[in-house]
C-alpha cells in the first residue's frame, strides 16, 4: 500500500512538472499514472486487462491497479473515498451499495462526454441515476434477461409467442393442455426470476423505489407485488411450472429446456453460451426470446444487464487524464478489440466483435419496447433474491398464504438491512 502511495505521489509530481498535461500527445510524451480501484475478480476479466494493457501501451501512461479482495472491496473502497484517498478511476456496479460512496460528492457526471451517445440505450440507462446523470462508462459483459422459449416446439404445437400477459397466460394453458411444462421454474436455489417481475414496478415508478428505500412503504403497500405473487401461486397451482419445480435447480434448467420437457424459462441470453447443454434434442437455435410475464406489466419486461461502470473521481487531480481514459475505453476500435469474441449484448452501438445471440437480435424490437434496467435487485436496499425465493417457496409449499408471503418478503428485507447495517437513506 505504501509502495502504491509513493508511486502515485511520484507520478503526480512528475505530471505536475510538465505543462499541457491534459493532451494525449502530452501523455504520450510524459507518462502519467492513473489509479484504478476495483474488485480483484472484476479486474481480472480478459476485456479489462486487454483495455488496460492497450491503454498503457498506446498512451504510455501507467495504470496503478488497486485490486481488493471481493469481500473487502465495498468497505475498503468506501473507507478510501471517505478519507479522500479514492482512486482516479473507480469500478462499481450501479447498485444499492453505491450509495455509501456519496456519488454526487465523489464522482464526475459523464453526460457531456462524447462517447455518451455511443452507448446503447439500455446500457446508458443502467448507468444513469434517477436524475439522468451518467455515472460511469459501462465496460462489462452485457446480457438481456427475458422469457426464452422453444420456438421450434411452439411452432410444432401450432402456437406462437405471447405479447401480452393475457396471451402469456393463454399460451401457458395451451402448452399445459398439450402436456408440456410451460415454464421451467427452478425454485430450488435459483432466485433471479422474481426480480424480473419487480423491475417494471420500481423502474417505471422511481418514486416507489425511493419510498421503499426510505421505509415509507413496504411491498404490501404495492398491489403489483401481490399481483405478481398471486400469479406465481396460481401458475404453480395450474401446473404451469410442472410437478417437480420445487426440486428443480440450476443444474436442471438446461436439461429441461434442451429436452423440450419445458418450453419456456426466465433467464438471460449468455446462459445459452455458458450453461446450456449441447447435444440434446434442442439447440440454442431452437430458442427465441419474448418478454417475461409475471403479471406486473401487461406487455411483459426484459431486464438489462448488470454492468460494471468505470467512474471518475471528480476530486482527482488527474481528472482530465481520467476522463481521457474513459474516452479511450469508449473508442469503437478499442472496445471492439477488448470484447472481441466475448459473448455479450452490445453496450456500445458500434460494438461488433462481440458475440451477440440471434435471440436477442430477433427480439430487438420487443426488447427496445419493454426492457428495464435491473432495478429490484440492484436498487432496492436490503433486497435479497434468496430471501424473496425463500418466502415464495414457503407459499408454494402451502405453508403461508399470498399475503403472508408478501409480508415475509418485507420482513426479510428489513432483517437484511439490519443485519448488514446498511442504510437505505
Amino acid at each position, binding site marked *: 500500500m505504501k509502495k502504491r502511495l509513493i508511486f502515485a505521489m511520484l507520478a503526480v509530481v512528475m505530471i505536475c512538472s510538465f505543462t499541457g498535461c491534459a493532451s494525449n500527445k502530452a501523455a504520450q510524451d510524459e507518462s502519467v499514472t492513473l489509479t484504478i480501484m476495483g474488485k480483484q475478480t472484476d479486474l481480472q476479466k480478459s476485456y479489462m486487462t486487454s483495455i488496460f494493457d492497450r491503454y498503457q501501451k498506446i498512451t504510455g501512461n501507467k495504470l496503478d491497479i488497486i485490486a481488493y479482495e471481493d469481500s473487502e472491496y465495498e468497505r475498503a473502497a468506501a473507507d478510501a473515498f471517505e478519507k479522500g484517498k479514492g482512486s482516479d478511476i473507480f469500478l462499481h456496479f450501479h447498485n444499492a451499495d453505491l450509495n455509501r460512496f456519496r456519488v454526487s460528492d465523489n464522482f464526475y457526471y459523464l453526460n457531456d462526454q462524447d462517447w455518451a451517445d455511443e452507448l446503447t440505450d439500455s446500457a446508458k440507462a443502467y448507468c444513469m441515476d434517477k436524475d439522468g446523470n451518467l455515472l460511469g462508462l459501462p465496460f462489462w459483459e452485457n446480457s438481456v434477461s427475458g422469457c426464452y422459449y422453444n420456438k421450434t416446439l411452439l411452432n410444432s404445437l*401450432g402456437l*406462437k409467442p405471447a405479447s401480452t400477459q393475457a396471451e402469456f*397466460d*393463454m399460451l401457458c394453458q395451451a402448452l399445459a393442455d*398439450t402436456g408440456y411444462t410451460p415454464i421451467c421454474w427452478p425454485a430450488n436455489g435459483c432466485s433471479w426470476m422474481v426480480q424480473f417481475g419487480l423491475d417494471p414496478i420500481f423502474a417505471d415508478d422511481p418514486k416507489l423505489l425511493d419510498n421503499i428505500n426510505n421505509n415509507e412503504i413496504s411491498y404490501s403497500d404495492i398491489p403489483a407485488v401481490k399481483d405478481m405473487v398471486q400469479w406465481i401461486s396460481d401458475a404453480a397451482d395450474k401446473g404451469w411450472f410442472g410437478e417437480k419445480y420445487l426440486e428443480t435447480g440450476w443444474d436442471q434448467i438446461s436439461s429441461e429446456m434442451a429436452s423440450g420437457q419445458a418450453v419456456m424459462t426466465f433467464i438471460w441470453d449468455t446462459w445459452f453460451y455458458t450453461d446450456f447443454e449441447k447435444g440434446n434434442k434442442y439447440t440454442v437455435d431452437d430458442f427465441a426470446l419474448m418478454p417475461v410475464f409475471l403479471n406486473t406489466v401487461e406487455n411483459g419486461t426484459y431486464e438489462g444487464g448488470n454492468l460494471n461502470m468505470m467512474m471518475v473521481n471528480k476530486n482527482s487531480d488527474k481528472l482530465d487524464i481520467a476522463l481521457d481514459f474513459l474516452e479511450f475505453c469508449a473508442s469503437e476500435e478499442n472496445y471492439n478489440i477488448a470484447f472481441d469474441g466475448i459473448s455479450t449484448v452490445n453496450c456500445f452501438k458500434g460494438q461488433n466483435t462481440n458475440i451477440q445471440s440471434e435471440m436477442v437480435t430477433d427480439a430487438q424490437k420487443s426488447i427496445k419496447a419493454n426492457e428495464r434496467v435491473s432495478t429490484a435487485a440492484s436498487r432496492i436496499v436490503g433486497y435479497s433474491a434468496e430471501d424473496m425465493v425463500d418466502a415464495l417457496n414457503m407459499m408454494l409449499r402451502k405453508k403461508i398464504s399470498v399475503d403472508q408471503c408478501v409480508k415475509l418478503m418485507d420482513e426479510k428485507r428489513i432483517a437484511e438491512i439490519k443485519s448488514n447495517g446498511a442504510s437505505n437513506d
Partner: protein
Amino acid sequence: MKKWIGRMALLFLICIIGIAAALIGTIYFHFISQRIYEDSTNHLEEIYDQVNYSFGAFVEKNWGLLESWGSYMSLADDEQSDRVHDLIAKEQKYWGFSDFYFVSSGNGCISLEGIDENIDMGEEWKNLTEKREPVMAGETLSSGKEVTVFAAPVPKGEYKGFSYDALAICYTNADMASSLNVNAFSGNAKCFIVHNDGKILLSTQTGGNVYDNYLVYLKAASDISDSSIAKIQKDWSEGKSGLLYCRIGEVDYSILYQPVGYQDYILLSAVPQSVVSAGFLSVQKTTTNVMIVLSMLIGAAVIVLLVMRYRKMSLKSRTELQYRERMFDVLSSSVDDIFIMLDAEKHSVDYISPNIERLIGIPAEQAHKDIRVLLNCVVNSDIVIPDSVLEAIPLQGNISRECEYVHQSTGERRGYRMTVYHMSIQDVRKYIFVMSDRTMELQMNKQLKEALTAARTANEAKSNFLSNMSHDIRTPMNAIVGFSMLLEKDADDPDKVRKYTRKITASSHHLLSLINDVLDMSKIESGKTSLNVERFSIPELLDELGIILMPQAKAKTQELRIHVQGVAHEQVIGDKLRLNQILINLLSNAVKYTQDNGKIDFTISELPQSTQQYATFCFTVKDNGIGMSEEFQRQVFSPFSREINSVTNKIQGTGLGMAITKNLVDLMGGIINVESCPGKGSTFTVELTFAVPDEEENELWYHKKITNILVADDDEEICIDIQELMKDSGVGVYYATNGAAAVDMAVSAHNKNEDFDVILLDLKMPGMDGIQTAYKLREKLGGGVPILVLTSYDWSDIENEARKAGINAFMPKPFFVSTFWQTLEPLFSEITVRDNEGEDIGEKVMAGRLFLVAEDNEMNAEILTEVLAIEDVKCELASNGVEAVKMFEASEPGYYDMILMDVQMPVMNGYEATKKIRASSHPEAATIPIVAMTANTFAEDVRNAMDSGMNGHLAKPIDMDAVRETVIRLLGPSAPSTNK
C-alpha cells in the same frame, strides 16, 4: 323367524325400489343428456351459422365500403385530400375499423396521415394486386398490433402524392369479435377464420391469440385421432362443414367448422361443451336438482312419516312398556316374590325386582351388578343351582328348588320356592328366576306343627293332670275319709284322736292347696285375674317370706340365705300378694326340690333405674337341688307339667305352681327365666318393675336426734352398704369390723361426750360376738345408748341372753333403713321393751269378743262358732245379709266387736249387707269392723270386699292364725279383763 322374514322382505323391497329409482333416474338423465346434446349442437350450429352469415355480411360490407370509397376518391384531386381524410375519419368512427390505408400494387401502403405501413397480406397480396380481387388477411402492423385487413381494388387515385389502386381497412380482433357477435358464449368460445391448412387468419379471442395453426394445435393438444384430423383437412379442402368433439387438456370442446364462402377460409370455433350446453345443462341441472330435491323431499316426508309412526309406535310401546314395568315394579314391590332375569350367555342381570332389598336386604343395584351376591345370603348352600344344571334346562322348561335366605339387615330367615324358567326372548336365551316367598306358609306350617305338638302336649298334660289329680285328690281324701273312720272308731283314745286329727288336718290342707292352685290357674288362664296394687315394703315382704320359708328350710336342714344388693327403694307400689305368691312358689319349690342340707340363695337386687318413677328388681332363687333336664326347662312354665323321675315322684305337687308363677310374672309385666342343670340345681330369675312412691322428706332422724351410729360387722361390705343406705338420712355411719374395735370407738366417743346415738352389732363376729360386745359396751357406756343386734338367724334362742347383755332390740339381716327405723322408733318413743308375756297375749287377743257372724251354711257356721269358741270368742249367727243388717242395727253400740260376713248368701249377699250396715244409722255403722269370710279368695274378691266397705278379708276354710292376725290388726289385742 317371521320377523326375520318380514325384515328381509322389507329390505328387498327397499332395494328393488332403490334400484328402480336409480334405473329410472339414469334413463331419464341419459335421455335428458341426449336431448341436451342434440339441442346444444343445434344451438351451436345455429349460432355459428349466424356468425358465418354475419362474417360474410361483414366482409361484403367492408369490401363494399372500400369500393364505394374508391369510387368517390377517384373523383377527388389532391386539393380534396382533406375531404377524403374527413370522410374516412367519419366512416372510421361509424364503422369502427382501426386503420385505413391506401394501397399501391407497387409501392406498399400509407395511412391517412401519409405514413408508410408494411402490409404484405401474404398470398392475398397477389389476389389483390394482380387478380384485382377484394381480399381479407391477418396482419401485424409495425406497431405490433394484430389486425384483420380488408382490401379491395379501386380505381387508381392519388392521395398526398401517393398513387394507389386499392384501399384497405383494418379491424382489431376485439373489434372483429364485436362485429361478428361471437360473444354468445360469454367470451369462452375461440373463434377463428382459418385457412384450409389451419393457419389462423383471424382470431376473435379476448385478450389476444397465441394460436398460430389451430389444426396443428388440435393435433398436438387434443385427443382427436390422425384420421379425424385428415378428415377435417379433407372437409376444409372440400369446403364442407362439420362438428366434432374433443378433449383438450381437462376440457371437452365442441369444434365446429364451416366454410366462410370466401376463398378457402373456414370459420372455426372451439367452444367448451360446458359452455355450449351451459343453458341446457343448467336446465338439466335444475331439473335434476328439482327431481333430486323432490325425491329427497318425498323421501324425507316418507322417512319423517315412518319415523313419526315409528316414534309413535315406539312411544306407545315404550309407554306401555313403562306402564308394564311400573306396574310390575309396584306389583313386585308389594308382593314377597322376587323376579330376576339373567342373560343365559353372560349371566348378566337384565332385570331384578326392587323388592329384593326389602326381602333379602340386598340393594337391587348391588344385585344388578353381581348376582352372585345372593349366594352370600343362602342358608343352605347345597341348593345353589350350578351352571351345568341351568344349561341343562330345556328351552321353555323350568326347574324348582326350595331355598332359604337370610335377610342381610335383619338376619330374618325367609323361605322361598325358586323356579328357574329357561326362555328365548327375541332369540336371546334368558333365565327367569321366580322366587316365591313361602315364609308365611312355612311359618304357618311350623306354627301348626307346634300347635299340634302343644295341643298334644297339653292334652297329654291334662291327661296326666287328671291322672295326677285323681291320684292327688284321692290321696288326701282317702286319708281324710280313712282317718275320719278311724277317729270315730278310736274316739275314746285321746292320743289316737290327736294323731288322726293332725293327719286329717294335714291332708285337708294339702287338698285345700291343691284346690287353690287349680282354681288360681283356672282364674289366671281365663284372664280374670287382676292385680291389687298397693304400697308395700320390700323389707316387710322379705320378712314375711323369711317367716314362711325359714321353717321349711330349717325342717330340711337347708341353708336359706337372703341377700339384698343395692335396694334403694324399699317402698314400692305393686301387688304384694301376687309378688309374695311368686316368690313363695319359687322358694318353696327350691326347698321342695333341694335335698336335705342343701343351699338356697335368695337375692333381691335393684337394677339401675331407667326412670325415677319406677324401680326394677331382680329376684333370684338359686338352689343346688336336683335341677331340671333341658327338655323340661322348656316346658317348666307350662301348666300341668311335672318332670317325672324317681325324685319328683315322691314330691307332692299339682304341676301348676310354675305355670301360675309364670302367668303372674307375665301379668305383672315381668320376665322369668330359668337356668338349670340336672343334679346341680336351678336358678330362677324374675325381673319386675314397680312404681316408686313419691319420696317423703325423712326428718325423723333429725327429730329423734339420731346423728351418729356405730356399726360393727366383720363383713366390711355390709358396713359400707349400711353407710351407703343411710347416706340420704343425714345420719353419720361409723363402723368397726370386730367387737373390740367397736368398743374402742364407742368408748372414745363416750369419753369425748359424743356418744353414738345407736350401736348396731352383728351377732356373729370373730373374737367378741355381738352379745359379748354388748356386754362390754354396757360395761363401759352404761345403759344410755341403744344397742341393736343385726342377724340373719332366728334370734329366739338367744333373745333372753341378749336382753341380759343389754341389747335393746334385734334386727334381721339384711339391713333396711325402714326396718332400722321401725326397730328404733319404739325405743326412742320410750316404749318399753315388751316382756316375755307376748306369746300369751297372742293366744288371748280375741278372748271375750262378740262377733256377729253372717253365714248361710249351717255347717260352716257351726265350725266357725266352734273354732272361735276355742278362742273364747262368742258368735251370734245370721243366716243371710238382711238378717245380719237387722241384728247389727238392733244392737247397742259396742255390743258387737266385729262382723264376719260371708259373701255369697241368699236374700242379701255380704257386699250388699256391708253397704247397708255402713249406710245405717247405727252409731257404729262406719266404724264397726266388717271382715269378709268367703271362699272367693282372688284379688278382685278382696278388692270388692274393700270396695263394699269391709275392713278385711278371710279366706275359707278358716285359718285361725289369719283370723287372729286380722282381729289384732283391726281391734288390737283384747284386754285381759274384757269378757262379753
